[in-house]
């Protein structure tokens, strides 16, 4: 599981339907690099194209590979 401050590359989006489309529309698609900024009360804040907040259920759909710290 990703920790706050870690960078990762998205491997797979496991959500179908409108949620999957919305994730892709927010520039969260396979191959994209993201930074997990903060976790607060089960809600995640991710930086990709902009800042995106999501709950555990949505975050669980995004499979990532941690990148080494730059």
């Amino acid at each position, binding site marked *: 599981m990703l920790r706050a401050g870690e960078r990762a590359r998205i491997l797979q989006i496991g959500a179908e339907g409108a949620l999957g489309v919305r994730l892709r529309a927010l*520039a969260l698609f396979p191959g994209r690099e993201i930074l997990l900024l903060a976790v607060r009360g*089960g809600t995640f804040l991710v930086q990709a194209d902009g800042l995106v*907040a999501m709950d555990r259920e949505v975050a669980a759909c995004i499979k990532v590979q941690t990148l080494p710290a730059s």
Partner: protein
Amino acid sequence: MHKSADFTRVMIVGNPNAGKSTLFNALTGGHAKVGNWHGVTVGVTERRAVLGDRAYLICDLPGIYAAESMTLEERAACAYLSDHTGILLLVAECARLERALRLFSVLAADRRCVLVLTKRRSFVRGGGRLDRAALERALGIPVLYAEGGGLRARVVQALSAARIWQWKGVLGTDRYTPCSAALSRMERLWLKPLFALPAFAAMLLLCFYLTFGAGMPGCLARDAIESLFSRVLAARAQTIPSPVLRSFVADGLLGGIGSVLGFLPQISMLFLFLILLEESGLISRLAWMTDGIFSRVGLNGRAVFSLLMGFGCTAAAILTTRGLEDRKMQRRVILCLPYISCSAKLPVFLTLAASFFRDPFPAVLVLYALGVCLALGMALLLRGKASPFLLELAPLALPSPRAVVKSLLFQIRQFIIKLATVILAFLLLSWLLSSFDVHGQLCAIEDSLLARICSAVRFLFAPIGMNDWRITYAALSGLVAKENVAGAIAMLCGEFPYPFASGAAFAVFLLAASPCVSAVAAVARELSVRFALLCSLAQTASALLLSYLVYFLLTGGAPLALIALAPVVALLLCIHGKKLSRRSADHIKTIHR
């Protein structure tokens, strides 16, 4: 498909918070609501405008992330697009151009389009680079920046040159270099939980204190206006020779209007706080920070938009629930909203609190907090499966003074219009009914038509020590507009004539009762008329029971309090029992599948 022969339809389309409504206002001179958060525009706004020598119907649509929509407002926008023809004015932030072009490739295919790029200054400051001319050649449609002078003229020129969208390529680095994604110091500060939530709580408390703390600007301004009406104008009114006209002007008009108008400075301060919150981008950070809390009561962070808007106006807050993902969540939030104390309840809370306390601030704060607790309690009672929470945070920005002043003046204008129409009409009706008897003769207030009508239902407030038709009338007047309550009390009673326990119980009734007719109409539009009327009735009935409970607790009548509590507990158990049986029925269906 609809098309008018008189004008050309222009539909403004783009991601949320791209600047569509700002462009709409610039083109039409209108006042579509703008704010620095995703989901401000909740319905399609249409306005005619003459640009150049042609008439256009400019349509501001809610923001869309993708053609396969997740929220109610996106679905409404997509449905509008598929039902209407016209030119598309595609609005994209320079910093989010890639994702915007992906959306436009789906929405705008085979339609005549113009691309408007917004927020260029911040994009360039962040190190971004964009070759507008090269982009225009690649897309084959006119491309212009929203910033810069002569926007209307440039848009007119672009609309006449609009072309069919056919591009499905990729943005090359020769045309576009994205800006830096580094967060500013202020952004990083608002990500720290130990700073952000306490800072927000402090801002809210400061706003409330400045608005209705004794000796604070809000109270001082209110006292000045009330003094103007009660001393100066009322004294002049006493010189009117005709007794009927004198009664109307002094008692009906000045007494009622003056008592409501006096609260304008305080209501304005409350709206100013909400506008600053919207314009700065803090509201979406608040949604992220509070999602964990809201998920425990079956909502999600997105609900904070609507609940915060509820502090301004319940009807407007109900409309923002279109930004939610599904009908069930929307229904739950709508049922919570009436308990949030809107700005219209502020006059009556202050009137009641001022009757018992030198400094009304703590009492009013308690009422606001009680409202929030009741709203969360209602959410917990109706708890269901929360929708997934996925929200893009708007960038933090210093509110533009021009935008803030414009929004505030719009709210003040709306209040004065309401005062000059609905409230004035109601006060006039109240004065007429309270000044004349059944024979149409001028009479004492106790013998008036109003006294006769309201005496029939005054028993409702007898359990809280107010077997008084005037209080009944004041409470009923709140169903039309909450500001009427303060006006009615001022006109019929002067000052609130009952002890603290009755005042507290009455305040709780007003807090929890059905919202005003505008809010009920908004619920009817969003859900159904039957649902809206049933909810209104149920809320008023439960508010009465709650007020009895408060009164009995304050007067030490514990056994009577239990009697008042019994129906409420029975209702809660009934609702909870229904939910449990529905869940077990669903579980059985799942096992059998």
